[in-house]
């Protein structure tokens, strides 16, 4: 078998002699091959060469359980880029395997290099039924030409009835190795030393071939994948050694093919799939003419085994990590001191017999002041007698973080011993190491200048009566402080502006005080009216009107004549109607104030109300 990683094109070019690669090629390999062939497309383009394309079989009469080879050959000059031929539909045959071989012949004639390639594809087929069968033409497309082979007619005869050299010969004596006879006289027995085990317990499986005939050329062995099991080979003979034995009262030739140890990794009824192989059965010569005897290729399959796997009993100890068998554990340190924070390796070795590969790492205790990293895992398997044993190493790097002496407590691991049907626990001894100058941890100080001297954190805070429930952060009133402060600032700013205006702007100041004054005077006037002091009433009313209009429009109304007053107010947009009325009231006041008689020509209260209304409108 050629490794996937082999640079195939090198092989492809290298041969002056035929190279055979890929005994049983999986279909996905063809893609690789085609790619490799396309790697040299120039070769294919060199010139249109004559291509010979043929198909042949190694024999045309075949027993139903026999295998035969179909060879498809393409040959020609510089045909490196030839694609894989297309097989016809083969409904009457099983395709058991395929391979490819290639021969390249380079010759120099008159300084010109010619390259003769022969590529042969071998297909191993097995007929499914008896009678006449036809292998249809194989097709090949190369350089826009289609090539095709001739059909091959085959005769499939009832198994074992090998075509005799001379026709009319009677069948061979004794049962032929075919059909049901095969299972009695030629078979492979898969035998397990036990069929009911605990999960992870070892089972030994022997594959032995039994044959009542002479057989040779055992090959094309197909092993199952043993899914659901971890499998290890215990014994496989270099060459198969047949022994004569009596088995179930019959003489047999028997040989051990392989002995395996399998460890179930799942529970339930697990099936060990059968293995199969091809053998050639040799019939002894019957007469003088049949000098070498006859031989026949037969494919035989072993029986399948069913293993009943029980789960491990509960309760599993906490330190159980999957080990089933009998183990010991020891721990060691590669050094006993670390300088400058170098890691120290703690090697934990689990050795013994059992499913050593399936054991997981033991739990590492916490080492205060040191950091334990994930382990590196190595294992080694040995076979002693028929049991699998070995060592599994877990190498934990330990990085000391502080100075001082460190104690690694003993590690414990539990495993299930199927002999005693109980869990057993093993423990390592306590280990010690010292660490010095660990990466300046001992001298490093934080920004406060605090020196770290100890090798441990400070102790926890004491019990509490109450705990802060929300943290200090949710003080919503803080959100109002800023707008409030800004508003305060604005208020003070406007206040200051107002004050400055009062001091500098006379009309502003007068206007500001006008309301207060007019209200005072009107109230005063009202009081006088109630007392019946009409003189004073009109005096205050006059004051109120003149004062207010003066303050309101910043006019010296006190000193104005009636006409001046009228025109000044009219110029400031006081409505004609109101102005006339106001002048009339003023006239009336003048008359009332200075007439000796105290009369009330109009209703004074109505005059007061009217004045108020007009002044309000200003």
């Amino acid at each position, binding site marked *: 078998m050629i490794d996937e990683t082999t640079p195939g094109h090198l092989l492809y070019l290298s041969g002056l002699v035929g190279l055979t690669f890929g005994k049983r090629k999986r279909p996905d390999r063809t893609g690789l091959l085609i790619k490799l062939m396309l790697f040299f497309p120039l070769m294919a383009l060199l010139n249109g060469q004559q291509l010979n394309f043929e198909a042949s079989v190694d024999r045309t009469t075949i027993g139903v359980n026999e295998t035969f080879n179909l060879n498809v050959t393409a040959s020609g000059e510089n045909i490196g880029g030839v694609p894989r031929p297309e097989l016809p539909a083969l409904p009457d045959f099983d395709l058991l395997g395929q391979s490819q071989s290639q021969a390249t012949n380079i010759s120099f004639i008159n300084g010109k290099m010619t390259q003769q390639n022969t590529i042969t594809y071998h297909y191993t087929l097995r007929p499914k039924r008896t009678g006449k069968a036809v292998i249809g033409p194989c097709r090949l497309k190369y350089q826009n030409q289609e090539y095709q082979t001739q059909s091959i007619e085959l005769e499939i005869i009832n198994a074992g009835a090998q075509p005799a050299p001379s026709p009319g010969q009677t069948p061979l004596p004794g049962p032929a190795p075919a059909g049901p006879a095969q299972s009695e006289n030629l078979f492979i027995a898969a035998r397990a030393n036990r069929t009911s085990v605990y999960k992870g317990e070892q089972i030994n499986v022997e594959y032995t071939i039994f044959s009542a005939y002479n057989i040779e050329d055992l090959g094309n062995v197909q092993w199952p994948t043993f899914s659901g099991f971890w499998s290890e080979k215990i014994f496989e003979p270099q060459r198969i050694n047949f022994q004569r034995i009596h088995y179930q009262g019959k003489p047999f030739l028997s040989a051990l093919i392989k002995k395996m140890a399998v460890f179930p990794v799942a529970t339930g009824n697990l099936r060990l799939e059968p293995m199969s192989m091809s053998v050639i059965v040799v019939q002894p010569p019957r007469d003088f003419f049949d000098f070498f005897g006859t031989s026949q290729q037969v494919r035989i399959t072993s029986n399948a085994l069913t293993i009943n796997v029980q789960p491990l009993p509960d309760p599993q100890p906490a330190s159980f990590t999957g080990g089933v068998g009998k183990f010991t554990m020891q721990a060691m340190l590669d050094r006993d001191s670390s300088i400058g924070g170098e890691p120290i390796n703690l090697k934990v070795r689990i050795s013994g017999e059992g499913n050593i590969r399936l054991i997981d790492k033991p739990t590492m205790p916490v080492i205060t002041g040191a*950091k334990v990293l994930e382990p590196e895992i190595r294992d080694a398997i040995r076979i002693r007698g028929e049991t699998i044993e070995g060592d599994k190493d877990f190498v934990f790097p330990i990085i000391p*973080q502080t100075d001082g002496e460190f104690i690694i407590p003993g590690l414990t691991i539990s495993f299930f011993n199927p002999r005693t049907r109980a869990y057993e626990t093993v423990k390592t001894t306590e280990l010690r190491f010292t660490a010095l100058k660990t990466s300046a941890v001992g001298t490093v100080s*934080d920004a*406060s200048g605090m020196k770290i001297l100890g090798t441990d954190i400070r102790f*926890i805070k004491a019990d509490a009566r109450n705990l802060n429930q929300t943290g*200090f952060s949710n003080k919503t009133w803080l959100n109002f402080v800023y707008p409030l*402060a800004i508003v305060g600032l604005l208020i003070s700013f406007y206040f200051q502006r107002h004050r400055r205006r009062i001091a500098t702007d006379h009309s502003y100041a007068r206007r500001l005080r006008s309301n207060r004054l007019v209200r005072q005077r009107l109230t005063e006037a009202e009081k006088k009216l109630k007392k019946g002091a009409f003189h004073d009433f009109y005096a205050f009313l006059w004051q109120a009107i003149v004062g207010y209009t003066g303050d309101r429009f910043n006019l010296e109304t006190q000193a104005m004549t009636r006409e001046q007053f009228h025109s000044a107010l009219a110029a400031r947009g006081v409505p004609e109607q109101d102005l006339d009325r106001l002048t009339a009231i003023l006239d009336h006041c003048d008359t009332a104030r200075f007439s000796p008689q105290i009369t009330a020509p109009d209703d004074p209260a109505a005059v007061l109300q009217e004045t108020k209304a007009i002044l309000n409108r200003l």
Partner: protein
Amino acid sequence: MMTLILSVFFLSFNPVESYNQGNTAYEQKDYNQAITCYEEARLQADDPRLWYNLGNAYFKTNKIGQAILCYRRARCLAPRDPDIAFNLNFARHFRVDKIPVADNPFSQVLRRGLMYFSPAETSFLAAICFLIGTILLSLYIIQQRGGWLWSAMAAGLVWLFFLAAGFAWRSETNPDNAVIIVSEANALSGPGPDYAGIMILHDGTEARIRESRGDYYLIQIPGGLGGWIKQETVKRIFSKPR
């Protein structure tokens, strides 16, 4: 069993009880139990002592990343507590990844100064300073006396300091600050398991989350290196800025 159920029932309504029970468990060196109790208490309380003790319990169970996270939360609530500062520093020295942080003495002092008051105190004091400053400014505006102006400017300077402190805390408590909480995390060149690994980060390494895509975060460690790591390997230190 009944007591356990009852106590769990009871604890879920009283964080103080859980806290004190956690302390008892811690003193008996049952750190995992202590973590359970503290974690329960912290659902309803946000107290520096609680975070500090929880950090200690994590540290004792060798979960450096979780411990650093707790200490940083505790420090945010009580920045002047020397125990918290000590243990945070101690835990940081326990990390596997020693990332050199180029911090000059001036910026260290500045940082310490800005973080002298906790975020809550900072915001409170900033508000008070602002209020005093505006009052002084108002007095100056009204009375036009130079003394008030100088005082107001002094208050404004103090307020600016608290403003800077507030920004410092905002950056400290940014939810993108995260810490590795698994013993080893592979930083990849892209947000998927098929990308090439860039570096391996270890428990306790503090990093900043730059981007989130699918199950992955793009994180950056101090110094600029970064990579995509699985979201469950890191934990954000703060869920919201303070």
